């Protein structure tokens, strides 16, 4: 997925940055856009202009775009990426404050502006925020600290080397002098920024005062008192409300609609047909779908008018996709040992298969919805020569050129205010709802418009997690060790471009490709028009389920202990030198967490009557995570997950509370998703609200025991990687309890339910 995000991000970010650079003539950037600009000038931040001329007596110190210190001692840290519930606003604040050596009580964290020239890539996706910003945030904090130290050294006439810092204070131990950061702010603001951020001395891990401790979320007080934080909470003077009614079958157009009647309804100010700007059958929603826009004086006036709307849809361009058909076609294809596209071959798998009796299994997993709780919405205000938006997007950079294209302005005339996101899960990496708002706002110029999706709009026009199918043949040797594997995945592709549907791909290095002497991975792809997109741990959340379930099947067939079976496979590469670049699957880290989870869960030890364990390991988003589910299953096939033991190697943890929260949430999310599905017939989703898509509620939430290895690798993100191992761990435990192998998701297909 990293490659996919890079592809998603590269073009718009570079374009936006180039425009921004030329516009501002901003020459002081060091290290190029996207890296090393931590101590660039604080372009766009308030009060910076005053620091460029003769400074007034009391100016705030804002050495970079990340740190701002007021003479009164208040420290404001700017979090560059969207907060979607992954806790990044708090984690980024902790990293900055650590190197700044600030007292946490002095710190306020605010969402930064969206500006690629200052901040580089700004997005929440791929669990990449921490690994992509670990260095530059530490440098930003350390750079500001260095300038404060320098200011104190000049003031006291002592060498910088004699000074230390602690709790937002510079200290000269030899003379007993101390100066608060606030008292040094004005002097520090007049100093040049450090020339080379990479030359700054960063703290040793053993000296951390903040990183690794527990912090409550920086917005929690505002959340529990109901303060407006979300885009849906934005209220502007004279604001109108709007809704865009789209064809239930994705891609359908409006043939006719009772527009004149709608316009006369109470509280309605306008209604019009939208031709749309998006391609009718596009795997990624990149624009406005056709439909009918209704604008009115309140949300309810608009929602009520929708009930009176009569549209005749032209289905000629609409999706005709049918899940029933896909299931049948995939089953036919699965009997072939090799698909249309071979993605990896090692040795001679056909020869091995011909001379052995392989273990065979065929897996099927459903489409699911993001179902994030805040329905899509955006406030947009088109002012003729510019447009201003307030949006809950995970990928703000992409929305700028998208909106610019829709309203016919240059991207530098688009201002986007990043709002807290009421659940992301990948859905809001697509900016279709921002596009909707921009489109409608242009038709109603000089008026702020709050564009609201209903829950039904949201679930009907989701960018779903793609379903799929996997056919495995595994061969065991005489010692019961895994000798060879043949994997044929049946996935989906765009019917026009033939590009694989998002998260419907099979990587050449997928485990265990590099661990076997005979291996083949291949794909067949069915044409799909339903929009699909990134969904929490895209690709890996389903790959983990099929692969780690099948590994358990192999261990059972070999009559070997599952933990020992998996450790033996990873052991074949133990001690291998780590590769360059972003960390890939590291067998030693895998072995470490599998052993840790087994030890903590009491693997192999006696269990209470009726309890059974299931294990899975998966590497995703740079995180190595092993999970063990402890379940019981009653006579009615109701599965209770009593406990999940989770062992994570994500390097050093930034905020222990936030990290545990993510893991707990991933386990609940995985349990929820085990029992859910979106089916589509005639191109339309069959489940459009929580009554038919019953996301999990409070009862029977399991105990989640989280153990972090705290290794010395660079820290990686945790919004996603705890999700993939959970479903196979639970399904493997169900097998241990019942002898029934779950090969189809949702598990309700086999008569099971999750308590």
């Amino acid at each position, binding site marked *: 997925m990293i490659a996919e995000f890079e592809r998603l991000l590269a073009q718009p970010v570079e374009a936006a940055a180039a425009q921004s650079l030329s516009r501002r003539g901003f020459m002081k950037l060091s290290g190029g856009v996207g890296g090393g600009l931590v101590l660039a000038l604080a372009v766009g931040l308030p009060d910076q202009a005053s620091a460029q001329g003769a400074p007034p007596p009391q100016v705030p110190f804002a050495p970079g775009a990340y740190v701002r210190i007021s003479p009164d001692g208040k420290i404001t840290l700017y979090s560059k990426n969207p907060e979607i*519930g992954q806790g990044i606003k708090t984690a980024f604040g902790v990293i900055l404050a650590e190197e700044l050596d600030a007292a946490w009580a002095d710190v306020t964290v605010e969402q930064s502006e969206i500006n690629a020239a200052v901040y580089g890539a700004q997005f929440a996706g791929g669990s990449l925020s921490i690994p992509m910003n670990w260095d530059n945030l530490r440098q930003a904090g350390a750079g500001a600290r260095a300038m404060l130290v320098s200011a104190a050294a000049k003031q006291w006439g002592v060498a910088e080397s004699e000074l230390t810092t602690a709790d937002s204070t510079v200290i000269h131990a030899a003379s007993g002098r101390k100066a608060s950061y606030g008292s040094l702010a004005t002097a520090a603001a007049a100093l040049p920024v450090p020339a080379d951020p990479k030359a700054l001395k960063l703290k040793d891990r053993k000296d951390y005062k903040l990183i690794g401790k527990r912090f409550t979320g920086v917005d929690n007080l505002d959340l529990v008192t109901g303060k407006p934080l979300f885009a849906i909470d934005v209220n502007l003077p004279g604001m109108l409300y709007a809704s865009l009614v789209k064809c239930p079958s994705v891609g359908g157009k409006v043939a006719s609609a009772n527009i004149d009647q709608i316009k006369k309804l109470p509280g309605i100010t306008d209604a019009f047909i939208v031709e749309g700007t998006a391609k009718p059958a596009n795997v990624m929603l990149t624009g406005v779908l056709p439909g009918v826009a209704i604008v009115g004086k309140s949300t309810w006036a608009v929602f009520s008018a929708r009930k009176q709307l009569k549209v005749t849809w032209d289905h000629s361009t609409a999706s005709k996709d049918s899940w029933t058909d896909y299931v049948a076609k995939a089953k036919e294809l699965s009997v072939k040992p090799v698909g249309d596209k071979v993605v990896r071959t090692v040795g001679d798998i056909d020869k091995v298969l011909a001379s052995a009796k392989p273990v065979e299994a065929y897996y099927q997993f459903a489409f699911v919805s993001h179902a994030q709780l805040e329905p899509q919405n955006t406030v947009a205000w088109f002012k003729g020569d510019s447009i201003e938006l307030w949006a809950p997007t995970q990928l703000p950079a992409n929305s700028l050129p998208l909106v610019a294209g829709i309203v016919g302005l240059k991207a530098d005339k688009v201002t986007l205010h990043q709002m807290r996101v009421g659940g992301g899960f990948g859905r809001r990496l697509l900016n279709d709802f921002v596009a909707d708002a921009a489109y409608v706002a242009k038709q109603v110029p000089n008026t702020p418009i709050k564009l609201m999706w209903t829950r039904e709009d949201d679930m009907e026009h989701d960018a779903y997690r793609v379903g799929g199918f996997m056919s495995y043949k595994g061969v065991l040797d005489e010692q019961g060790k895994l000798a060879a594997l043949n994997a044929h995945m049946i996935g989906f592709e765009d019917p026009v471009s033939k590009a694989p549907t998002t998260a419907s791909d099979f990587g050449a290095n997928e485990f265990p490709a590099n661990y076997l002497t005979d291996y083949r991975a291949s794909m067949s792809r069915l044409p799909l028009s339903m929009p699909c997109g990134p969904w929490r741990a895209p690709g890996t959340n389903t790959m983990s389920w099929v692969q780690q379930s099948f590994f358990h099947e192999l261990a059972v067939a070999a009559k070997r202990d599952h933990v020992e079976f998996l450790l033996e496979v990873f052991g074949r590469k133990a001690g291998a030198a780590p590769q360059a670049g972003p960390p890939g699957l590291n067998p030693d880290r895998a072995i470490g967490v599998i052993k840790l989870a087994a030890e903590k869960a009491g693997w192999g030890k006696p269990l209470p009557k009726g309890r059974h364990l299931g294990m899975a390991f998966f590497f995703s988003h740079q995180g190595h995570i092993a999970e063990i589910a402890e379940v019981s299953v009653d006579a009615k096939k109701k599965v209770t997950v009593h406990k999940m033991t989770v062992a994570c190697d994500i390097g050093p943890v930034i905020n222990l509370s936030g990290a545990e929260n993510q893991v707990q949430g991933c386990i609940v999310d995985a349990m929820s998703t085990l029992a859910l599905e979106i089916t589509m017939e005639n191109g339309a989703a069959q489940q459009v609200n929580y009554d038919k898509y019953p996301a999990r509620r409070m009862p029977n939430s399991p105990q989640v025991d989280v153990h972090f290895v705290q290794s010395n690798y660079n820290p990686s993100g945790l919004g996603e990687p705890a999700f993939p191992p959970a479903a196979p761990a639970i399904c493997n435990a169900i097998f241990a309890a019942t002898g029934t192998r779950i090969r189809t998701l949702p598990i309700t297909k086999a008569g099971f339910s999750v308590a």
Partner: protein
Amino acid sequence: MLRLNVNGQERTIDGIADDTPLLWVLRDELKLVGTKFGCGVGQCGACTVHLNGQPIRSCQIPAVAAAGEKVTTVEGLSAGAQLTALQQAWIDHDVPQCGYCQSGQLMTATALLKQHPKPTDAQIDQFMTNICRCGTYVRIRKAIHAAAAATAGKGGAA
């Protein structure tokens, strides 16, 4: 003209349709946006407020039905800067992830503690029917127990 008593204040709202749900009067007319829209069909509970102390899904009752009754929203939970024990427990236990459902969760939990000052896990399961898509249930339960313990001996006022 609609008269509502919201968080102890008399409010009047002009020109709204009789079928307007209380949710949209609170959000669009009174700008009390702490109460959230999630599903519009009474499923998710993000819109939970109190009507005379009872938790209700405000997307499911017309605002006119609340005329003359006491409506409490998340903005009215605490008196001034003094947080309730539940609000404090939500912060102490770092409950929220995205946070969108949490005002509804707090309103439901507040009503729970009024009925059951020391709730059992079973009572929590029965009462707390709101959806948290981020899955913060483990922490919600902890925070409810913590708030109950903190208010024990203080008359149970959460």
